[in-house]
């Protein structure tokens, strides 16, 4: 990294929990943990090189916006899925009702027949 020599850096060592988080993310998204670190460092670099003074709070708003957008997307997908399942369930319930009527009718038919048998 060419800019690294000309700039001063503070070395931050990941805490135990952060290390666990990193490794978890690494296996979840199938990405080398070092690469995740590089992405974060890359952002810090760009951030520091930007001439407009970008505040940390602004970065936070930006990230929260991304998170919200993703949540909305995921939820929209889930809504489609639940609607589908609800429709199937409604259809099933109509079938259950039909079955019930058929069962009752069959029961009655059998009952009346066996009554003839009981008389003997």
């Amino acid at each position: 990294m060419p800019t690294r020599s000309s700039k001063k850096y503070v070395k931050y060592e990941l805490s135990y929990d952060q290390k666990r988080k990193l490794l978890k993310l690494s296996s979840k998204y199938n990405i080398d943990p070092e690469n995740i670190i590089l992405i974060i460092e890359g952002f810090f670099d760009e951030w520091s090189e930007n001439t407009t003074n970008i505040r940390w709070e602004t970065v936070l708003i930006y990230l929260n916006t991304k998170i919200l957008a993703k949540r909305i997307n995921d939820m929209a997908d889930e809504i489609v899925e639940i609607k589908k399942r609800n429709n199937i369930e409604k259809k099933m319930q109509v079938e259950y009702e039909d079955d019930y009527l058929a069962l009752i009718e069959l029961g009655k038919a059998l009952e009346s027949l066996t009554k003839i048998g009981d008389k003997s």
Partner: protein
Amino acid sequence: MKKKQNFNVHIPDTISEQIDNIENIVDNFLSNYMYLENVELDDLTNEENLEKEFNKLSEEFNKISQTYGKLRQEHGVLNFHGNELFSRNTLTGLKLGLVMGKLERAKSIWGDQLSLDYNAAKELIQYFFERYLKKSEDDD
């Protein structure tokens, strides 16, 4: 043996100077590293636009959460009702099985004098048996 790995993040001191809690930020960046990959820093220079966007999304999120909640609720109610209907049919089917037993006896006594289509009735009961009784056995 692989030796215990340590991970360090190098933070430019111009940045670290303006940050009170580096641990927090690194935490946040770890969770959201995927969004950091393609950041257009120009997007970050207009704070007002960002806030507008965030507020718009918050509103959208609130709305969709409500829709989602209602659907989940409907799903719960449907599920509950479906289970009730299913168990009712199962019980009714079971009773039918008992009547069928009686029918078997009647048939042995009365034989062909029974006007019922015995095979059709048996088939129907078999169908219900498979649909309700067998299914609940499989679920266990």
